[in-house]
């Protein structure tokens, strides 16, 4: 049966405007983006779904997620990660290769895709590792990985330390049209550090991770991209200096793109005070000046993408001494309200913000989605801009609950998520799942 989404506010990520349009869906595809009421609402062969007061975004796409399967299913599975994603409004997630074993060969890539097909309710895009075992030494089989379904390459969690290997990776990935996502960190500078090196680390006696450990590697990767002409995507940008370096590179026309995560424009290093291990992340939460620079980078288009770096950890890895705790927080279920804060603060317009978390990552990864128009698959997120709620531990659908936002009041909430016209997840019984 055809479906007609009526009375919603449609977010156009191409023209960057909000339109009062109805959407006709048939066979999983968008058949028409119609003027309000252009098609009569009462027809026998059309199911009308009234979403007045809500916004319709293209299904959100998170290009930086850790799903933990295979290997650490006690933290997250492909199934639970997909559920958390759908609840957050995501219809596509790219999963990082730091699993056990690492996604460094086509068998693992195929396993992830087959699990996703069997158990996942959103689209899963595997990112394979750049080097075998993520050891920074030997390139993986990019061609074979691409054939198996990988959309990008990254040794995320560890940088490729050797500049010659990174150079060859960029060149060879370009040939196979695979996006290289670089985790930028000079580990000689950062090793042994557990939070941002600054006034708070000095006060509470935790070894710091200096901003320059990120910035030096970003500058190296920019040089490699400039020299080779091959694109590089910088993961989880957290510092003012990084934004500045990327800004200069873009002005010179160097093929570099970049992402940041919601926590880097929401929290600063003071969140760590009291040794809060749920604020322990790599790269670490930085200073208020860095937070401002990240926002400016988003506003000016220096930072193309918002991605969550969703990193589930068991509570046993967090309820320990701060310097023993694992790095990382979950983000799929809190991304939308935190990103909507950018809109409320006037940093980005709503369409600009949605574009950075849908169309833009789709373009960078070379995948479908991120746009609502005739002929596209009907992957959609319908959300409420103003609903306020307190995030409670028990409401989290991810297997892990490691987030500094538990107990925080969040504003804006995904109501239901559609994939190919089917409601795959809904928090409102008015819009039941298929």
């Amino acid at each position, binding site marked *: 049966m055809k479906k007609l989404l009526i009375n919603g506010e449609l977010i156009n990520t191409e023209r960057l405007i909000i339109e009062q349009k109805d959407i006709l869906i048939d066979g999983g595809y968008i058949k028409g983006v119609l003027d309000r009421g252009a098609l009569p609402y009462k027809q026998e062969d059309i199911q009308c779904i009234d979403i007045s007061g809500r916004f319709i975004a293209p299904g959100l796409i998170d290009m930086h997620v850790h799903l933990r399967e295979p290997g650490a299913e006690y933290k997250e599975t492909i199934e639970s990660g997909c559920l958390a994603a759908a609840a957050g409004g995501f219809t596509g997630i790219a999963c990082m290769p730091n699993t056990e074993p690492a996604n460094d060969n086509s068998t693992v890539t195929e396993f992830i895709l087959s699990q996703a097909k069997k158990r996942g309710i959103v689209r899963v895009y595997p990112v394979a590792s750049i080097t075998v075992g993520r050891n920074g030494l030997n390139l993986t089989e990019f061609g074979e990985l691409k054939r198996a379904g990988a959309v990008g390459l990254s040794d995320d969690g560890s940088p490729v330390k050797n500049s010659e290997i990174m150079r060859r990776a960029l060149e060879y990935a370009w040939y196979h049209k695979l996006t290289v996502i670089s985790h930028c960190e000079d580990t000689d500078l950062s090793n042994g550090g557990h939070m941002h090196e*600054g006034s708070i*680390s000095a*006060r509470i*006696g*935790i070894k710091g991770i200096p901003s320059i450990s990120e910035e030096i590697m970003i500058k190296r990767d920019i040089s490699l991209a400039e020299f080779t002409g091959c694109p590089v995507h910088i993961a989880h940008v957290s510092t003012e200096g990084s934004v500045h370096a990327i800004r200069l590179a873009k002005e010179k026309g160097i093929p570099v793109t970049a992402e940041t995560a919601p926590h880097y424009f929401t929290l600063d290093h003071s969140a760590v005070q009291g040794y809060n291990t749920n604020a322990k992340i790599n790269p670490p939460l930085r200073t208020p000046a860095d937070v401002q620079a990240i926002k400016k980078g988003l506003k000016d288009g220096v930072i193309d993408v918002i991605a969550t770096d969703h990193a589930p950890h068991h509570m046993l890895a967090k309820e320990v*001494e*701060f*310097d023993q705790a694992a790095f990382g927080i979950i983000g799929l279920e809190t991304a939308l309200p935190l990103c909507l804060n950018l809109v409320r603060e006037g940093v980005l317009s709503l369409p600009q913000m949605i574009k950075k978390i849908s169309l833009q990552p789709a373009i960078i990864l070379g995948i479908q989605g991120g746009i609502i128009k005739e002929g596209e698959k009907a992957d959609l997120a319908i959300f409420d801009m103003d609903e306020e709620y307190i995030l409670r531990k028990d409401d989290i659908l991810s297997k892990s609950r490691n987030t500094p936002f538990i107990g925080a009041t969040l504003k804006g909430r995904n109501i239901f998520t559609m994939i190919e016209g089917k409601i795959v997840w809904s928090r409102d019984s008015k819009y039941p799942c298929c």
Partner: protein
Amino acid sequence: MNVFNHKNLLDMGQLSVSDINLILQTAESFKEISSRDIKKVPTLRGKTVVLFFHEPSTRTKTSFEIAAKRLSADTFSLSSSGSSMVKGETLIDTAKNLQAMNPDIIVLRHSSSGAPHLLADKISASIINAGDGSHEHPSQALLDLYTIKEKKGRIDGLKVAIIGDISHSRVARSNIIGLQKMGAEVTISGPPTMIPHDISELGVAIVNNPSEAVLNKDVIMTLRVQLERQSKTLFPSIKEYSNYFGINEKTLSRAKEGAIIMHPGPVNWGVELSSQVGDSPCSVILDQVSNGVAIRMALLYLLLGGVRSEETAN
């Protein structure tokens, strides 16, 4: 009102000026006990103090143990090598098991900054931080404040130089906070590799060269070069450290007349401090040790003394 409203002593940041004054006064009244022929009072009879030392310590542990015993508390020692932590038990687990045996106070020394804070949230016994990683060592700062007051008659308005590895020193951190609260002016000194980034935001002056840092100072506090801890990048050799950053009689002659020299111990003689300085009348290093017992008696007493209101007890 002399009320000590704290369940735990985790760091100097939690103490108000009147809290600190109360601790110093209480220590004063306890100090005499240690010079008696029979060095024991029944004040804490029936109380249990666990000394949970997760890192090697002689001085602090002994000091707490003597303090507890002079107040008639029962003490029980636990080190990480003798505990189940070597079998992989987590800190929280070990502490919860300890809690199940109902001690009144756990004195914790741990290599991780924030470890006592982690436990304070989870268990009902009082926690005394006896040194956590590079964070704080509040009982050391309190005994230092006591010693300074004893020797100089006041703390307010004094100029203090703290010299050495500030980055890794919990003694330095606690003293910076404590001295500033009590109105002293703090200068830190040492090679740039040992001065934390952005430490000036704590309101301290930074003068790298010790010869300049000691100028006009009332108190010179030197820190132990932690040979066992420091990575190779902080200074090239002991000899070079001693030549450029060690304190000798010549350096000391530039301080204010009557300046005292302190050290939390154990001293690497000939490295951060020349033995001549240690033997000179301006050294108060052994007074610090004696005063440590009085301060720790005061802390145990105040935390167990029942003068804290029920509200903060929860």
